[in-house]
């Protein structure tokens, strides 16, 4: 009899335990709301990161979170869901996350769009998102190792012209920003190179630095430290104006080709978040962008801010989407 009662007690205890943990765990996301009026934000905000901790998206979020906390007065924490070049996190953002403004995500171009343009299995698209702000754009650059015979862009272009399809040019992976930059550049210049995809920006520029390939299309922020140290040379940047970080390097526009490209990082929320939430988030971001401390930290990463707010960012995403669809339709068959 007493043994049986013992067992009942055990069961009751376990049930109580489970409920406590489940309750506690769900409460971590919802601290006691302010009683007077329900006004956004009243609980913690989660930032979905579609890449590994330590990557570019994480770096941005780590820098921005303390400022968002300062201006929104709720805690902001990262949730990492890496995989499928961000598509796992962005699919979750578009399809599963509540559109209450408490889940936002770092959104990178061009991967945000090229993911679903190139793969039918990836089903989200930018129309299912509310673009909030763009924070920075890491411009595309052409780099060569310090011992490379190419001193200027003209040297490089001449070599490509004389040996069509054999000059080896690295990129960060098929479907990545540098892959598309190379394609856009090839189309604009009428030249043809042998593209070599690597797994990420690092291996791509390092192969150029070590003289394994002739050049690499990569991003300024990635190679900035190596440029300063004199290990690699930038031949040209894909920017509108000369970058303040490398003022001596000509832009592609100056060289006669209207090609502007790079990889941007910003923030988006699911579609249909409340207007007050959208406004509050954008306001907090605007304050952050004016904070000199934040700007100083961005500069430390070798990045320059490229701020686009709300509808401007949405238009930018939509325009880029159209551009990438066109390019992909043109080259799809030659890649496959």
């Amino acid at each position, binding site marked *: 009899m007493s043994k049986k009662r013992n067992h009942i007690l055990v069961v009751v205890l376990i049930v109580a335990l489970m409920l406590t943990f489940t309750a506690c765990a769900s409460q971590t996301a919802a601290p006691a709301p302010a009683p007077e009026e329900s006004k956004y934000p009243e609980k913690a905000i989660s930032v979905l990161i579609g890449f590994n*901790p330590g990557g570019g998206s994480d770096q941005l979020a780590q820098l921005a979170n303390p400022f968002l906390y300062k201006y929104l007065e709720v805690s902001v924490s990262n949730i*990492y869901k890496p995989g499928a070049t961000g598509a796992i996190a962005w699919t979750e953002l578009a399809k599963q996350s509540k559109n209450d403004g408490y889940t936002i995500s770092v959104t990178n171009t061009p991967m945000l769009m090229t993911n679903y343009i190139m793969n039918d299995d990836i089903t989200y698209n930018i129309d299912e998102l509310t673009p909030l702000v763009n924070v920075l754009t890491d411009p595309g650059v052409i780099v060569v190792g310090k011992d490379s015979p190419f001193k200027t862009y003209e040297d490089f272009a001449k070599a490509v012209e004389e040996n069509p399809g*054999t000059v080896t040019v690295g990129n960060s992976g098929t479907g990545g920003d540098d892959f598309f930059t190379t394609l856009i550049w090839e189309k604009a210049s009428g030249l043809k190179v042998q593209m*070599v995809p690597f797994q990420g920006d*690092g291996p791509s520029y390092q192969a150029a630095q070590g003289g394994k*390939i002739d050049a690499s299309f990569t991003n300024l922020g990635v190679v900035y*430290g190596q440029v300063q140290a004199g290990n690699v040379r930038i031949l040209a940047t894909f920017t509108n104006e000369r970058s303040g970080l490398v003022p001596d390097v000509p832009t592609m526009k100056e060289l006669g080709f209207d090609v502007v490209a790079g990889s941007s990082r910003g923030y988006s929320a699911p579609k249909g978040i409340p207007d007050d939430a959208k406004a509050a988030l954008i306001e907090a971001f605007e304050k952050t962008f004016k904070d000199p401390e934040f700007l100083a930290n961005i500069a430390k990463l070798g990045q320059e801010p490229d701020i686009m707010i709300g509808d401007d960012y949405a238009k930018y995403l939509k325009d880029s989407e159209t551009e990438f669809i066109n390019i992909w339709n043109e080259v799809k068959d030659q890649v496959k």
Partner: protein
Amino acid sequence: MDNILLGLTNVLTLMNILAIIGGTAIGLFVGAMPGLSATMAIAILLPLTFGLPPATGISMLASLYLAAMYGGSIAAILIRTPGTPAAAATVLDGYPMSQKGQAGKALGFSLVASLVGGLISSIALLTVAPILGGIALKFGPVELFAVAVLGLTMIGSLSQGSPIKGLLAGVVGVMIAMVGMDAISGAPRFTFGNIQLYSGIPFVVALIGLFSIPQAIRLIEKDQELIKPGSIKDKMLPSFKELKSMWVTMIRSSFIGIFTGLIPGTGGDTACWFGYNEAKRFSKHKEKFGTGYPEGIVAAEAANNAVVGGALIPTLALGIPGSSATAILMGGLMVHGIMPGPTLMTQYADVTYTLIWALFLANFAMFGVGLLFTRVSVSVTKVPNKVLGPIIIILSVIGAFSINNNIFNVYQMLGFGLLGYFMDKVKIPSAPMIIGMILGMMLDNSFNQSLMMSQGDYFVFFKNPISATLLAIAAFSLLQATPLFRFIRRKIKNKVA
């Protein structure tokens, strides 16, 4: 030289020493927990160190990285589940030692080897980093292909009993590594329309599944205990006499670790197998490997700890991270306004050399804290099997989940677990499958990249001195495994005699 001494005086402050000890303690813990990795811990702790002076914060994280390499062997030895991928090779001889009731001793060997490996690589980092750093740049696709081929030849020597079974497991492992988006064409391969498979199957998931689930089932399927409980009072540290025969192995493994760390794209997970395999190749007692032979533990553990210093060499000398953990450390330096790159050794020499000395001292902290931590953890061998079994399952599930915060990985882990249990019954070894998974992607990508760079010329692999040498070693290892080689050797021996 001045910089080196400056670093030494900088590191000897109370705050730095405390940071090193703290980092070491956390490292031991995350290393010992299957699923929690040093990379993850560094990423999570990084923002917390922003408030500290750069040298202190980064020193703490580097100590963590080092200690986790030893920590991984604790779970590998006690419960046959590698705590980190770098401890996978330690399982082969560590767990059999536990079964013989020598768990404490096995951990002692592991600790000493970790200390030696760590010290040798710290000294290399302190003295010849600028010279060795350049090696990282010498490894492009062509050379990496040769490394992958050389790595795969280990499968032959690691498949005890039946080479056919080992090869089959290895090739299936390579095939599994093909799952995911193909880096060359961008096409999703073998993903069956599921975007969860686009990034491939994380091999840590497979590792946890293949090792720990079969172990949990094995623990409960019989009534008698699998492990003889080791006594906490057992002498843990090996005597000098016991170590005497292993110096060569330890030093060899340390150099293997440093070089594996240097090469971007390879780290502790590869180094432990290389270290183990070379120890076996040069040993007079090949048959003892895999049966609880301390030299096997020593070979793997010296190699994985040496990776830490090795991976930091190109990071500090060139700003090129040698492993994923050092990539995050580099990000940490950038947030402190220190631009990684060659200027680290000159412009920021105070921070850099403080960090290097901190790593050097972390070896001793790891030894001290490790000794205490290990004494306590040996008591795991006293836990009844039937309690340990379910707990291993809980740890594996949360470990597999925490890799990508994705429940899908837990399902995959379970799948590999059942596969591992079945492989165990058919006596197909799982180690070759792990090696196949680690190297498979590298093999395919570097092969295609090399051919793109050479305009389709297959001889590119023989024209390059590094890859030609590595491929020759690979060919030699294959030959060594055939009866022909034994025949020739016997002939030569007879002639001499």
